[in-house]
């Protein structure tokens, strides 16, 4: 804090005396900001004319506030803010997914006799993010949130939606670039079906385990044989798109029916 101004200086400042130089006025004002005692002294030194002016200004401000539009309430948080920690936690996983798909696209380009590796891996793209969505290791406030009424399927679906919003554009870019050599629907529908399957299986064994299990199973049953035989499986032929859509709807409906199993985060 700066040095207390003298009573005489405060009186001269209050009177608006022109003899006070600019540096002294500045020094008094800086000091007043942090010294309640000197502000009280200043209040005592204020002239009747100044007090009348202050009262007049205050009344005018009140009138303007009352007559003007209601101030727009500042939202405490917007939806992106609520999930911003989650978006930050997901970004490394999204980057990893993009890198894997990029490598797959490069391999597909370099070895044209292989089936599209991008198409083979697309169904698994959101699964690492979905696994993170309900992980106590990823969410620092996990224990606080686990005891709130919002903990459950609704929260899991909200976080899964964030994952899909981040991952689907990545897949769309690869589909648009021709790396998948297939209809974009064949990239997206299996991806949605696997997301729904992860949630459904997650209600039984935990989302993380479900995601890991499904990735391992798809890799062993579909990806490895396809690469070994250099042929796309029937599951990823254009005719299968309708089946994937139906499967996605059925799995989503079954997940909703098991909503009660998601009440405790510890069941994941």
């Amino acid at each position, binding site marked *: 804090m700066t040095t207390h101004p003298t009573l005489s200086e405060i009186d001269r400042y209050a009177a608006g005396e022109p003899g006070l130089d600019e540096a002294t006025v500045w020094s008094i004002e800086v000091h007043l900001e942090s010294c309640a005692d000197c502000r009280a002294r200043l209040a005592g030194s204020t002239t009747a004319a100044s007090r009348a002016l202050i009262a007049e200004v205050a009344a005018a401000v009140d009138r303007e506030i009352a007559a003007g539009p209601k101030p727009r309430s500042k939202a*405490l948080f917007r939806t992106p803010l609520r999930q911003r920690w989650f978006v930050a936690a997901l970004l490394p996983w999204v980057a990893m997914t993009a890198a894997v798909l990029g490598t797959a696209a490069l391999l597909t380009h370099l070895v044209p006799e292989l089936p599209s590796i991008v198409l083979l891996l697309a169904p698994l793209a959101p699964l690492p993010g979905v696994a993170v969505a309900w992980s106590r290791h990823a969410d620092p406030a996990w224990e606080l949130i686990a005891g709130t009424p919002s903990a459950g399927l609704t929260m899991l679906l909200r976080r899964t939606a964030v994952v899909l919003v981040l991952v689907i554009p990545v897949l769309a870019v690869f589909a648009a670039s021709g790396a998948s050599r297939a209809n974009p629907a064949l990239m997206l529908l299996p991806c949605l079906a696997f997301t729904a399957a992860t949630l459904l299986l997650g209600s039984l064994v935990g989302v993380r385990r479900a995601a890991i299990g499904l990735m391992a199973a798809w890799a062993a049953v579909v990806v490895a044989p396809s690469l070994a035989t250099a042929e796309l499986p029937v599951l990823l032929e254009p005719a299968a798109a309708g089946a994937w859509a139906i499967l996605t709807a059925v799995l989503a409906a079954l997940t909703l029916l098991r909503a009660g199993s998601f009440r405790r985060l510890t069941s994941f």
Partner: protein
Amino acid sequence: MRAVSTAETATTTHPWAIHAEALKVRAGRHLAVDGLDLSLTTGVHGLLGPNGAGKTTLMRALATVVKPSGGRLTLLGRPVDGRADLRPARRALGYLPQHFGYYPRFTVREFVAYMAWLKEMPKADIPAATQRAIDRVGLAAKADARLRTLSGGMLRRAGVAQAIVNDPQVLLMDEPTVGLDPEQRLDLRELLRDLGTDACVLVSTHLVEDVVAACTEVVLLNEGRLVWQGTPDSLAAHGDDGHAGDSPAERGYSALLRRHRAEAAR
């Protein structure tokens, strides 16, 4: 998220705010709470016990974070074991865990408001409730500071603010005085006494002096079982002459634990 009306969250009267019968809770493979019978009503209850007594596991089960493995547990008359719907009980809960995680980039206000939103408070009530909770823990000056910039004591107070933002009927606080300086501890004791006038407040701590100063009742736990339950004055009355320099209540706490261990060894 469905907004909950004030009528739904209004205070209701139950014979016991917390009622446990033969409660068993596991911490991993270890049965940390082993057949606990406990009934608590309005007031401030201090949960005491040595390390490994099962205090934190009990708090986590009461907070509906961990599912009991046996026995019965009701909060405000609602079962929270088995496959019960936990939402009504959770709306009336406030919980400060021992290891309190947070989002470092959130401000105190955003964090407390986020927790109020997760507790399904009516949206219109959240800003005022957030400000009130922040004021009650003395963090008004830091309301817009990011959590990562706060000291340990301030973070703990932010944790208390999120716990009380919904005016809980059952408030669970695990080691709330950790990291607080002496003056802040005194303030927290006063806040606990205030909250305990119309809520059931359960405070887990190692500090007998906090319990004596703030609590209306003491619950002593050892090896997952209830050892003793009574007033702080009656705890002090159990003390013997040993351990000169300890307070009467600390001597009472030690004497009751020794007696329980001796009985268990027989």
